[in-house]
C-alpha cells in the first residue's frame, strides 16, 4: 500500500475535473471563434445600457383576460413592429403569462418606443393604388395618380421591372388577369365559401366610381377621389425597405392610408376603413373542400363574419366585385397595425358572411394568416408596466462596483478561512478559485447557448454564492476536525468526515437549489437573474466539492505536512484536543494511558 496507490482515485478525479474545465473553455473558444459566442458572459441591459419595457396586452373588453395564444400573438405583433423600426438585437419575450418584455440595446428615441407600444388594430380597407414597395422611377411616375378619375391608368402600375421580385410575395401585383395567368401563381382571391354566389347583387358602383370627378367628395371608399395630390406624393416617396418608413402616417379610420405590406414587397393607397377586427367572428385555415365534400389540395383561409360584419362585408364585396375589371381596385386589404397583411381580390359577392381566401398559401402560411385574423379580431392595446432606460455609463459603473464588492467579499472569506483553518484554508481558496472559473465559463457558455444575460441581480447572486460555496467547505472541514477530535488519524478522519459531510452538503445544496428554482419561477423578471445564478452556482458548488475539494484534501491527508498534523495545517490533533486522555486498549494485552499533553495546551 504505497502512497501513490492510495491517492490514485482522488488523482483521477482531479484529472477528470481538469479535462472538464478544459473542455468547457475549449467550447467557449470554439463558439467565440466559429460561432456567435464570446469570451465573457453576456451582460443584461442594466449593466450594458439599453432600454427595457414591460408591456401588458389589454383587450378592449375590460373583463376579458388575455389568453396564452393572444399573448403569443401580441408578442408577434410587437416583434414585427420592432423589426419594422429597424431595431437590431432586440429581444422580445413573454413573461409569466401576462406580460411582454422588450429589451433593446442602446437608446432608441421616444418615437420608436411609442410606435412599439401603440394599440394593435385589425382593419379592412379597399385598395385604391398598389405598387412595388421600393420606388422605381418608371413605376412611380406612371403610378402617381393625379387625382383625375381614370382608374384604368392605375391598374398597370406594376410594369415590367416589378417582376424581378419574389413571385410569391408579389403574386397579386400581376397586370394580367391573375386567375388565368399561366406563369404567375394564383393570387389570393376572396370567393364565397358558398359555391353559388348570390347573383344580381352586382351594383353599379363601378360606374359611379369612374364617373366621379376630381371633386372633393368621394362617392364610396373605392373612389379614387380619395387620392389627393399630397397622398400621391407620400405614396411616391414611400420606400418600404426603409426602417420605420410608415411611422409618420396617421391611421385614421375615416381617411385613406398610404402604407406597405408586411412583406415590404408592395405599397398601397387604401381607402377608408370599412370593417374592423370586431366584425370577424372566426378565422380558420385548411384544405378547401371540393364539390363532393372531399378535401382538395387548395389551401384556404376561411373567414366568418359577425351579423353586423356580414352585412358590411356583403356591401363591400358587392361594390368590389363590380370593379372586377380593375385588378387593383377590386382588392380588399386586411390591415394590421397600419401594415397590409394580405390584399386578396374579390371574385364574388359574399353576402353570407363566410369568406374564403385562397391563393399561393402553404398550409403553414395559411394558418399564420388565420391566426392573425382571429386574434386581430380582438383589438389589443399595450399598457406600459415598466420602462427602464439605463445609460451605458451607469451600467458600466454598476458592474465595476459590483465586481469590486465581489472581490472584497472574496478576500474577506479567504482571510477568514485562513485564520480559521490555517493552511487548510488554502484549499478553500483554491476551491473558490475553481468555482469562480467554472461559474465564469458556465455563464459564458449559457449566454451563448441559451442567451442567458448577467444582470445586476445575477452578479449579486454570484457574490452571495461565495458564502454558500465556502459553507460547504466549512461543513466538510469541521466534520474532519470532529473526526480528528475523536482521535482518528487524518486519513481515516478525512474519509469518515467526508461520508458524513457529504450528506449535509447534499441536503444543503438541495435546499438551496429548491429555493433557487422556486424563486426563479415566481420572481419578477428583473430579479430572476439572482435566482438563476444562485441555482447555477449551487450546482457548481456541488461539482467543486465532489470533484475538487474532497480529492484534494484526500491527497493532502497523505502528505507529511497535513497527515502529520503540522501546527499550521489546521488539523493538528493536539490543538483540536484529540481525545486521548482515557486509558485505551492498545492491542496484544497492553493498555495505554497517554500523557495529558492536549490538556496541558488547552
Amino acid at each position: 500500500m504505497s502512497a501513490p496507490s492510495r491517492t490514485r482515485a482522488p488523482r483521477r478525479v482531479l484529472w477528470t475535473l481538469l479535462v472538464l474545465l478544459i473542455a468547457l473553455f475549449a467550447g467557449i473558444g470554439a463558439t467565440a471563434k466559429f460561432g456567435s459566442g464570446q469570451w465573457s458572459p453576456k451582460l443584461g441591459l442594466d449593466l450594458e445600457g439599453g432600454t427595457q419595457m414591460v408591456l401588458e396586452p389589454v383587450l378592449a373588453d375590460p373583463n376579458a383576460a388575455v389568453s396564452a395564444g393572444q399573448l403569443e400573438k401580441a408578442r408577434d405583433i410587437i416583434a414585427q413592429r420592432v423589426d419594422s423600426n429597424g431595431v437590431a438585437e432586440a429581444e422580445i419575450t413573454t413573461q409569466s403569462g401576462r406580460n411582454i418584455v422588450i429589451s433593446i440595446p442602446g437608446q432608441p428615441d421616444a418615437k420608436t418606443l411609442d410606435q412599439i407600444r401603440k394599440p394593435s388594430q385589425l382593419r379592412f380597407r379597399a385598395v385604391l393604388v398598389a405598387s412595388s414597395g421600393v420606388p422605381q422611377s418608371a413605376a412611380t411616375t406612371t403610378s402617381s395618380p393625379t387625382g383625375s378619375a381614370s382608374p384604368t391608368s392605375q391598374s398597370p402600375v406594376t410594369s415590367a421591372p416589378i417582376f424581378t421580385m419574389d413571385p410569391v410575395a408579389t403574386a397579386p401585383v400581376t397586370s394580367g388577369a391573375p386567375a388565368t395567368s399561366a406563369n404567375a401563381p394564383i393570387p389570393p382571391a376572396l370567393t364565397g365559401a358558398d359555391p353559388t354566389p348570390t347573383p344580381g347583387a352586382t351594383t353599379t358602383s363601378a360606374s359611379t366610381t369612374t364617373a366621379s370627378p376630381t371633386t372633393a367628395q368621394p362617392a364610396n371608399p373605392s373612389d379614387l377621389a380619395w387620392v389627393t395630390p399630397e397622398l400621391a406624393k407620400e405614396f411616391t416617396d414611400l420606400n418600404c425597405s426603409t426602417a420605420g418608413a410608415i411611422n409618420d402616417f396617421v391611421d385614421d379610420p375615416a381617411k385613406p392610408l398610404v402604407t406597405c405590406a408586411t412583406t415590404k414587397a408592395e405599397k398601397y393607397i387604401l381607402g377608408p376603413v370599412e370593417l374592423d377586427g370586431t366584425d370577424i367572428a372566426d378565422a380558420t385555415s385548411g384544405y378547401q373542400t371540393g364539390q363532393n365534400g372531399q378535401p382538395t389540395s387548395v389551401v384556404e383561409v376561411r373567414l366568418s363574419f359577425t351579423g353586423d360584419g356580414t352585412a358590411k362585408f356583403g356591401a363591400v364585396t358587392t361594390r368590389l366585385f363590380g370593379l372586377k375589371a380593375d385588378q387593383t381596385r377590386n382588392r380588399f386589404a386586411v390591415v394590421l397595425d397600419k401594415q397590409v397583411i394580405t390584399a386578396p381580390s374579390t371574385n364574388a359577392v359574399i353576402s353570407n358572411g363566410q369568406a374564403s381566401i385562397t391563393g399561393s398559401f402553404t398550409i403553414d402560411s395559411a394558418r399564420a394568416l388565420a391566426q392573425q385574423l382571429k386574434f386581430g379580431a380582438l383589438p389589443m392595446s399595450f399598457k406600459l408596466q415598466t420602462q427602464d432606460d439605463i445609460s451605458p455609463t451607469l451600467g458600466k459603473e454598476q458592474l465595476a462596483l459590483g465586481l469590486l464588492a465581489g472581490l472584497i467579499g472574496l478576500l474577506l472569506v479567504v482571510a477568514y478561512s485562513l485564520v480559521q483553518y490555517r493552511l487548510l484554508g488554502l484549499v478553500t481558496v483554491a476551491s473558490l478559485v475553481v468555482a469562480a472559473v467554472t461559474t465564469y465559463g458556465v455563464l459564458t457558455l449559457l449566454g451563448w447557448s441559451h442567451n442567458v444575460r448577467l444582470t445586476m441581480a445575477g452578479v449579486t447572486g454570484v457574490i452571495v454564492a461565495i458564502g454558500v460555496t465556502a459553507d460547504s467547505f466549512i461543513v466538510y472541514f469541521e466534520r474532519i476536525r470532529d473526526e480528528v477530535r475523536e482521535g482518528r488519524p487524518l486519513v481515516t478522519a478525512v474519509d469518515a468526515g467526508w461520508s458524513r459531510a457529504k450528506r449535509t452538503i447534499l441536503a444543503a445544496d438541495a435546499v438551496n437549489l429548491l429555493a433557487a428554482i422556486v424563486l426563479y419561477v415566481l420572481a419578477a423578471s428583473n430579479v430572476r437573474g439572482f435566482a438563476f445564478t444562485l441555482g447555477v452556482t449551487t450546482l457548481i458548488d456541488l461539482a467543486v466539492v465532489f470533484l475538487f475539494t474532497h480529492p484534494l484534501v484526500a491527497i493532502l491527508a497523505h502528505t507529511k505536512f497535513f497527515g502529520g498534523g503540522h501546527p499550521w495545517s489546521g488539523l493538528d490533533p493536539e490543538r483540536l484536543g484529540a481525545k486521548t486522555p482515557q486509558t485505551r486498549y492498545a492491542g496484544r494485552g497492553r493498555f495505554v494511558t497517554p500523557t495529558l499533553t492536549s490538556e496541558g495546551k488547552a
Partner: protein
Amino acid sequence: MTSIAQWGNDLYTGKRSIDFIGRQKQWYAFSAVLIALALVGLFARGLNFGIEFRGGSEYRLTSVTNTAGYEERARSAIAEAGIPGNVLATVIGGTTVRVQTEAANEKNEAAKAALAKTFGVDEKTVSASLIGPSWGESVSQKAIQALIVFLLLVALVMAIYFRTWKMALSGLVALIHDLVVTIGIYALFGFEITPSSMIGFLTILGYSLYDTVVVFDKVRENTAEALGSRRQSYAQAANLAVNQTLVRSINTTVVALLPIFAILVVGFTKLGPGTLLDLSLALFVGIAVGAYSSIFIATPLLVDLRRNEPTLVELAKDSARVQAKEPVAAGVGVGAAAGGSDAAARHTAAADLRDAGAADTDSVGRPLHKWAAAGPRNQPKRPPRSKR
C-alpha cells in the same frame, strides 16, 4: 484564533457547554420581544414600499460635477417638465444624483432633458426607470404567492427529510420567526422594500431552513445515540448537538455574511439603492436572524414539543439514574463535565468506524493499531478490497 478552536473543542466534547435547551424561556422571551417590536413597527410605522410597488419614475444622472443645491435644482427641473407631485432627490457616491418622482408616462423624455440640462450632463447618459401603477400590484401579488408556495414546499421538504412532524413544525416556526423579525426590522428602520428585497426575504427562508437542517441533523444523530446508550436525556443530547454545531454555525454564518457585508459597504457608499443593495440588505439581516433562530428557537422548541413523549420521559429517568450512579459522567448538558459526553461520543465513534484505513500514528506520533485508536470497539468490519 486558538481560543476559538479551543472553544470549539470544548464545546464539542461537552467540557464547556452553553445551556441552550435549559434556558429556553429566556430565548423565547427575547424572540417574543423581537416579534412584538416587529409587529409594532409593522403596524405603527408601516412598510416603506419602493416605487416598484407604488409606481413612479426614477432618474439617475452619473458624473455630475456640481451637486450643490441638488434638491432645489431637481425639483425645478421636474416642475419644468410638467410632472406634478413629490420630488425626492439624493446624491449617491458624490457624483450620482438620483431623482424620484410620480410616474412620468409621456413626460419621461421631457424630464430626462430637463434634468440633463439642469445638472449639465449629456441627455444620453441619464438613466430612467418608469414603473406603472398596476405593475406594483402584480409584483406584490406574485411575492405573496411565492411566499406561500415556498413555505408549503419547505414544510414538505422538512416533513420528508426529518420524517417527524415535530421537527418540521419547529423548523417552520423558526422560519416564520425569521421572516417576521426581518420584515419588522425593515419597518422599524424604514428600509425601502423593492422586488429585490422581496426575493431577498424568500432567499432567507432557504438559508434559515438550511441552518436548521444542519442542527437538527446533529440532534437526530445524538439523540439516536442517547436512546441506545441511555446515558443522556433527550434534552441533554439535543443540547450537546447544538453545542457541537455551534462553531460550525458561527463559521458558516460569518462566511455567508462576509461577502454580503462587502456588498453592503460598497452599496451604501458608492452604488446607492438598487438591486444589489436591496438584495444584500435583506439577506444580511435575514441570515443573521436565521442563524440565531436555528440555535435558540428551533432546537429548544423541538425539545419542548417532544418532552412529554413516553419513550423520552423514560429516557430522561434512565439517564438520570445512570448519571447519578456515575457522578463523573453526570450533568452533560448542565454541569459541563467532560466524562459523560466522552463516553457518549466514544460510543458514537466506535459505532461508525466502518472504513478504518491503516492506522498510522496516534496523536503523539507512536505507531498504533487502528482498532485501538479510540478505545474498545465492536468487531470491525473487514474493509473492502479497494480500501486495503
